[in-house]
């Protein structure tokens, strides 16, 4: 009995060793051979869809007929867009026989990580959701295509979007980074019913806002809440900075002459940080906000334990999930309060615009690149974007009409705020170099909340990240 089991163990071990050595030997062969080994292995086990996709793996054209397009989006099964994107893929494949789209759907955080790794290894997806700040880095390295020529060549497609939308995605050298996918607009959401009940006035200036905080606290309610654990400070950082220093200084800090002057008083960032600290010191956030996820913050707002919430238009969907349609009826929107004591600040600029788009990989064969551009255009079309907006998924950046009756009043106000804005500034993660954005939302602002950093130290952390980033650019 014992002998038999030992024999079995020996057999299993030898089989394992054989399998491992086969695979490792495969790794040592020429790439083509490996691809073939992999393909044949995959064909046996994967379903038809996967097998078709993987038979093309390794070459742009597997058999000369099949073209595989790798598409990365944030539309996972939890997203309201998931069904629409699957339908679009099916239709595209039907209209283009021989094209197989491999759709990799990841959460935004995961996709950002994956894009960073893919860029570092030079293996970008063919078509992908992409924030503007990432696209700015990718285009410098020649990893993605410039859309300016395509915009010029296709006036019909250009006409879908207002000029400010393309302006927001255009670099100083005229390159257009992305095809516009998603519009964003900020809102200082407040519980109108609660404000009326307590006789509070919606704050339009910073002084009014700061005067209101103790009144709300006296009523036993948290003035403002956010998902600290999820580092949801990118929008707030932009709002503080644009109110404190204005558009031009903001842009100069992010990609202009002042890229390494974040600690310089004249650029306004130290003032913005000081204002943020003033708000924190007044007790605007709840205790333990840094341990609170965005969903927990949504729940707190929906449970009417917090009076205000500052973020983008997509929050409407979250608020509905957390508090139901009746909660949405209690909400109204404000612009972030104007800082009247900051002469350079811009009181009318709204945080948002269009800084999420679709990128297309550079360097593919012309036929494949053409197909990728067509796919990207389909994803950015009104036919795809408007139904999603009507479902509350996102704000479409185009000028097309939509059925207002399908959206809540607060959502209509957000869309109206987008279209009526004088000017936009993206949220910090959409405009600042990624390292600087992370330094602000993961180190500086949280550090002030937890009191680990004072305003000066917080500014210094961001300055260091900016200097490191500038040094890395010089090294390139």
């Amino acid at each position, binding site marked *: 009995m*014992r002998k038999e089991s*030992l024999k079995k*163990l*020996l057999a299993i*071990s030898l089989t*394992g*060793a054989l*399998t*491992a050595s086969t*695979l490792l030997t495969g*790794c040592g062969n020429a*790439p083509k051979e*490996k*691809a073939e080994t*992999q393909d044949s*292995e*995959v064909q046996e086990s*994967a*379903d038809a*869809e*996967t097998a078709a*996709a993987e038979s093309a*793996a*390794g070459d742009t054209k597997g058999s000369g007929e099949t073209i595989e397009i790798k598409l990365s989006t944030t*539309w*996972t*099964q*939890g*997203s*309201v867009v998931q069904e629409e994107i699957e339908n679009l893929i099916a239709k595209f494949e039907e209209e283009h026989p021989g094209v197989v789209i*491999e759709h*990799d*759907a*990841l*959460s*935004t*955080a*995961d996709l950002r*990580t*994956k894009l960073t*790794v*893919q860029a*570092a*290894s030079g*293996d970008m*997806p063919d078509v992908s959701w992409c924030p503007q700040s990432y696209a700015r880095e990718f285009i410098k390295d020649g990893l993605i295509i410039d859309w300016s020529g395509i915009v010029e060549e296709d006036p019909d497609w250009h006409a879908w979007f207002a000029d400010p939308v393309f302006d927001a995605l255009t670099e100083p050298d005229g390159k257009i980074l992305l095809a516009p996918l998603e519009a964003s607009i900020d809102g200082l959401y407040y519980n109108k019913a609660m404000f009326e009940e307590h006789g509070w006035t919606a704050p339009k200036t910073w002084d009014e806002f700061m005067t209101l905080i103790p009144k709300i606290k006296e009523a036993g309610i948290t003035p403002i809440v956010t998902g600290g654990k999820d580092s949801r400070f990118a929008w707030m950082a932009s709002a503080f900075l644009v109110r404190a220093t204005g558009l031009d200084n903001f842009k100069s800090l992010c990609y202009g002459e002042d890229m390494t002057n974040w600690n310089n008083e004249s650029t306004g960032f130290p003032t913005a940080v000081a204002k943020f600290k003033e708000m924190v010191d007044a007790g605007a956030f709840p205790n333990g906000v840094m341990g609170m996820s965005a*969903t927990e913050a*949504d*729940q707190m707002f*929906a*449970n009417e334990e917090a009076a205000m919430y500052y973020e983008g238009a*997509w929050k409407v*969907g*979250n608020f509905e*999930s*957390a*508090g*139901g349609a009746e909660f949405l009826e209690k909400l109204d929107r404000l612009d972030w309060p104007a800082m009247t004591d900051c002469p350079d600040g811009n009181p009318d600029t709204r945080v948002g615009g269009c800084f999420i788009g679709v990128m297309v990989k550079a360097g593919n064969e012309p036929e494949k690149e053409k197909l990728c551009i067509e796919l990207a255009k389909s994803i950015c079309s009104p036919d795809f974007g408007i139904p999603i907006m009507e479902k509350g*998924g*996102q704000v479409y950046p185009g000028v097309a009409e939509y059925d207002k009756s399908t959206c809540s009043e607060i959502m209509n106000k957000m869309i109206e705020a987008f279209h009526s804005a004088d000017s936009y500034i993206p949220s910090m993660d959409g405009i600042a170099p990624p390292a600087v954005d992370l330094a602000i939302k993961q180190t500086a602002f949280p550090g002030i909340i937890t009191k680990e950093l004072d305003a000066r130290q917080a500014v210094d952390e961001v300055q260091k990240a900016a200097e490191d980033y500038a040094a890395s650019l010089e090294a390139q």
Partner: protein
Amino acid sequence: MLGNKKQKVLIYLALTIAAVLVILPLMWLFFTSFKSRADLAKNTWGLPKIWEYSNYITAWTGSRIPTYMWNSVRATATAILLTVVLATPVSYVVSRFRFRGNKLLYLFFIAGMMIPIHSTVIPIYTMVGNMKLNNSLEVLGLVYGAFRIPISIFILEGFMSALPRELEECAVIDGCSTANIFFKIIVPLSKDGIVTISILTVLSSWNELLISMLLISTPSKKTLPNGLMGFITEYNSEYTQLAAGIMISIIPAVLFYAFAQEKIEKGMIAGAIKG
């Protein structure tokens, strides 16, 4: 006598608190999986007001959980195979053979424990991409296995060093070859250690997210943690369905533990003493 009784009460109290601390999150997850999103928002800690069985149906039908589970099994099985097949003979050599450089060889292998997985993601992604091996669960298992080898050698070396040398000497006198000593004496006596490294490999591979997210992009090839993350999006997180998905996904682990409880406990305890 009284002191013993008091001590017992304190021990039972501590164990009860520990049990509650372990069970409470699971109970919360269980109840959350039966709530609607609005119910979860307003009634985070209570029992579901209306039991939403549809979360399970949606999680099962809408997210390919069975496929994700099978994929995780494939990647994990490969990792176990690689770890056991490679770590066992290496541990035997470094623990039982005396030769120049033995210690250096051992240190070379266990130095791998000091390499954080995050520092290797770009080279791994580039290498796998260059070899056109993306979207292969077996390759994912190889990567998992490679990261488990150093700690496995560290654990098994401890087990094997503690085995009495006389056993080998008797076997040599009886004419046993080195291979036979390894397969017929060392491996059976190190069974608990092998079980321990297998369990640790299961635990780390089953829950791994970063590497699987990078190496696997085909939807039908995603592993369980990667697939379940699909319930969370920036704009619309389906936490109740995610809870249902997690409840479904822990069934194999619970069954695995139920059937292999004795071996797992024995292996872990033995590892703790000898390793």
